[in-house]
């Protein structure tokens, strides 16, 4: 190229070009932020298989095919954060500390911390007052919300975890996990060993 780029400078140019090519390759390989989920995939998200006691189970095929999108992707987590407010979750769970509903922060997951359990809780409801959101949210929204709920009480913050909201400050944001040690959780209720008795 320029006279300045003689033998000694080729490594620079080569490194630069290599980095650009590598970046382009990574970009091509990585899926861009998906704003519209194909209806068949969205429908498949409904097909989770739960254990008979309603705790844990196998997520649908598409969940793995998409790279556990709802668990780790920053965009979906932030959508979940919005849905948490829009669908009135704070009225029972407050900012995650729990009130009428259980806390998400004390590390005690009545039905286990897996995404399928959380999705099932939101979709189908649970005994003792958790309503079913099957008819109020689409299944994709439920997955987004579940990802966020899982983040609220995470021991180590996900890379894509949401930050604080432009609202009154009540507790440190999800990206500053572990949430548990960051503030007093107040008196902990008595938890049954596994799930509520019917």
């Amino acid at each position: 190229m320029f006279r300045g780029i003689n033998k000694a400078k080729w490594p620079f140019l080569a490194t630069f070009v290599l980095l650009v090519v590598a970046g382009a390759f990574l970009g091509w390989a990585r899926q861009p932020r998906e704003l519209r989920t194909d209806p068949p995939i969205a429908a498949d998200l409904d097909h989770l298989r739960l254990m008979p006691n309603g705790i844990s189970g196998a997520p649908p095929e598409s969940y793995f095919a998409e790279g556990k999108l709802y668990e780790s992707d920053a965009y979906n987590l932030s959508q979940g954060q919005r849905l948490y407010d829009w669908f009135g979750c704070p009225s029972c769970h407050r900012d995650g500390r729990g009130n009428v509903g259980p806390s998400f922060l004390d590390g005690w997951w009545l039905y286990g911390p897996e995404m399928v359990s959380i999705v099932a809780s939101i979709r189908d409801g649970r005994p003792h007052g958790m309503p079913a959101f099957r008819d109020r949210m689409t299944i994709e929204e439920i997955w987004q919300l579940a990802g966020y709920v899982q983040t609220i009480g995470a021991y180590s913050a996900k890379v894509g975890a949401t930050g604080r909201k432009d609202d009154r400050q009540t507790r440190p944001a999800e990206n500053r996990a572990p949430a548990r040690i960051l503030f007093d959780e107040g008196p902990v209720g008595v938890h049954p060993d596994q799930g509520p008795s019917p």
Partner: protein
Amino acid sequence: MIVRDEVEDLRDTALDEVQLDRRLSETWSTPTGLWGALSTVDHKIIGRRYIYTAFIFLALGGILALAMRLQLSEPEARFIGPDRYNQIFTMHGTNMMFLFAVPVMEAMAVYLVPLMVGTRNIAFPRLNAFSYWMYLAGGLLLWIAFAVDTGPDVGWFAYVPLSGPQYAAGKRADIWAQMITFTEVSALAVAVEIVVTVLKQRAPGMSLDRIPLFVWSMLVTSFLIILAMPAIMIASTALILDRLVGTHFFNPAEGGDVLLWQHLFWFFGHPEVYIIFLPAVGMVSTIVATFTRRPVFGYLAMVMALVTTGVLAFGLWVHHMFVAGLPRLGESFFTASSMAIAIPAGLQIFCWLATMWAGRPVFKTPFLFVIGFMVIFVIGGMTGVMVASVPFDTQVHDTYFVVAHFHYVLVGGAVFPLLGAIYYWFPKITGRMMSETLGRWTFGLIFTGFNLTFFPMHILGLQGMPRRIYTYQPEMPWSGLNMFISLSAVILAAGFLLFFIDAIRSAASGPAAPDNPWGASTLEWATSSPPLPYNFARLPVVGSLEPLSNNSETLSVAGGLSVDRRELIVTSVVEALPEARESSPGNSIWPLWSALATTVLLIWSIFTPWAVVWGSIPVSIALIGWFWPKGTPEDDT
């Protein structure tokens, strides 16, 4: 290692020209090979790297612009979706402002200022090397992030709350904010180097009234950088803190304020325009003087205009916020101050016109670009007066009118002079001439393409087309002009393509350039093309504003410098009287290690605040390695 002669402290007066060149080459050369390339501190090598890198970013930014024009060429086009489009226009703006415009102007200064003031290297040459590595790292961070779909998508101005913790998911906005830190560090470092070089390393006799206008413009620019960039550092730090550790600077619910961001951003952002434009003023003045064969009319007035512009630049920022809902009375003040800056700009235009009228113009390519600059920049200035008016601005703010306006100012006001400057200094930098024929074609294509592309945008803006939209509906009356603009952009792109072809071809096989091909009168033309590693075998002594014009056969020089160490002269600020012989630091790999350590710290800190604590340890080690004396003659005598 330097082979020592038996004579201790050998001085240049004891050597003839051939011996002197040999000894100075031994002292000042950059070793060949990769290690030498990585550890060089020669301002010419670093300046060249800066220039190449900035032009690569220009080309990349141009490709993004073409992508946007493709998407906008017809209504409801679906070439690019909104998510990618938002990244593209953010990248285009960020890239052009932070990775092209500011760095390329500084790059030209890094290369030219030491030559124009007649010294052998820039002040703090290792800091200079460090600043380049930081710039490169910041640019790579941004572009690699873009390639992996993590490119910032919040606009180059990153208004909160859209860029804040709640509305900008993921690391995209953090990448933007941290890229700012990289480029600010490098810009501030170069600004310090330029200030000290200009104030303290001028050739003996180059008193303040004999400083070339380009050097003056870079001095004022450097002060603007020093005073303006801390504002964006504070702003981007506050943004990252809001996003990462939950501070409330921009959260109105907890006492923060959304407009605080805008104030801080534009307190930097408006001077930024002059940081880009003032060096161009210096380039225009230099080219006008050379190609009209007379000094620029009104030297003192030009310098005063530069300084006035620099001062006023800090009093205009609110005109970017005329529709944000600030008190009208305050806004009227900013209307007045924004309009007032047209006065020094007008003065400069009139001085150049007077110079052209009184001189004997020679219509070579660099001068053509200056003429193009005059035509386009004056339109940009006029639309600048328009948007300075509050009521006018309420209709055109954030529309394509403003897009047209600032492209007229920045492309017309800075890129045209820059291209002229490249044609002008190319022989000095590479030792080869660029093609005059291709140069004329380049100018014609870029000038035509530019005006056909950007002038219609004024109309689009008045017809109600907002900025930053990824498409528009067919019922809006904008599709015809948009198609016209997109087609014209192809002409503009062809012009730039031709420029790159010409530059690459000429660098490889252009005709050899003489030392002073244009008959110019500033000091950089008093040395060979390209200059030797030590710039001047004997440092020049200056007796007038145009050291090469009076008696072009002999150059007055100073003698008595040591040749065993890298030595240059420190002179007094006003009169440029010699104060000391001073050593200039030699090559070192530590700036590269320091830059790498800083890069790790900055990128890591996007993910956890603890990176600042742990990451500062390698940075400290690298800096200590940098400054610890190595027992070289430069360190110890």
